[in-house]
């Protein structure tokens, strides 16, 4: 279970990077690459092993001037999915 006090980082061998040829944000992983859409990229740029999930949600809520509960739901779902895939860990 992912709570707002959780603090995630990229697992070794996984990273977010900007693809300057295709103009996309991508997640690099062993033997594959995923495209991160704008919201996913904005979120993952904040994942640094120091910020808690709460701090990430607060920052995105301020940036996008959106309803915090909706941001919290989407961000938690995204990060939980990436943790389950082994892209992120705590």
């Amino acid at each position: 279970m992912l709570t707002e006090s959780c603090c995630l980082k990229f697992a070794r061998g996984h990273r977010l990077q900007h693809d300057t040829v295709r103009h996309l944000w991508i997640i690099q992983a062993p033997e594959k690459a995923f495209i991160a859409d704008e919201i996913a990229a904005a979120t993952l740029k904040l994942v640094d092993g120091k910020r808690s999930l709460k701090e990430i949600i607060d920052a995105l809520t301020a940036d996008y001037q959106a309803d915090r509960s909706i941001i919290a739901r989407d961000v938690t779902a995204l990060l939980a999915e990436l943790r389950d895939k082994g892209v992120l860990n705590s």
Partner: protein
Amino acid sequence: MTTPYIPSAAEAPPMSLLAEVTHRCPLSCPYCSNPLELVRKSQELSTESWKRVFKEAADLGILQVHFSGGEPMVRPDLPDLIAYAQSLNLYTNLITSGVFLTRDTLKTLDEAGLDHVQLSFQDVIPEEADRLSGFSNVQPRKLEAARLIREAGLPLTLNFVLHKGNIERMPAMFALARKLGAIRVEMANTQYYGWALRNRAALLPSLAQLDAAQDVVNAELARGGLAIDYVTPDYYADRPKPCMGGWGRRFLNISPSGKVLPCHAAETIPGLTFDNVEEKPLKEIWENGQAFRRFRGTEWMPEPCASCDRKEIDWGGCRCQALALTGDACNTDPVCSLSPRHNTILDAIREANEKTELPFIYRHFST
């Protein structure tokens, strides 16, 4: 959300570069995927040439570089090459037999910023691993290599090449992967080109073996915790594999001497001209090189491919296989049951299901 990366346009930039930095190898496996004619040390690209190629590759849109061979660790400049690729934001993957991996050599690679290691295993039984690799006491070295890789915190994939003689030990292979802390396992049945084709009758599993293997894979997938990439021998399929994700669509391969190939077996195909990175920029080769244009897209296709609704799914299958089994790389891959030459596949399957114990033809190369 996140989605897998799939290129769209036919001339879209490639995603992966297989950098075959050498053909030299201390092992002598009977299913070796390298060409029958190997590149000698004196013909290998220099450190500076490889670096220039990586810069051109990153500018072209390559995201991942797979350092392969031969055994890439025979090159003393490997850490230097990895560090340079890493500085260009290229994802660096080392594909190794592990026999030269020690605490010291791994530390150098780790400090160079290596992202991921694929460690090859021939078997789970030490005697069988020795027999397959032609290398004495190979298994303890590989087990130690795996331990060191995990100790350094590097993500590890175990690679197994499956064949008639080891496919029934897949449960033990999965158990080994879990015990060693691998995050991923590649279990690829031998693909029958070059050296492996010479040994096909001794390597191709029976249908019963393949059915059992699929059950094992399904059970392991259900257990979770391990990414599994299982590749069946396409001889038993009705439709061909989309070889390389389509010719000249995603991958390129650079040979130890700098030849740029659409796949690592492409040199077997007559009538193709392979450009060399010492003579032309990589972008020019990828976009306009004769070898890449020859089978890119669907224009080249004969019937039954040309009118097939799967032509942009399997891209006509494998050109090297069409050549090896029908004598002409322009033919439909004979794996396809619609191919007029599908009988060549059926004959090979019959042979594999009749004969059991056959000797291997080994290959040896070190110069």
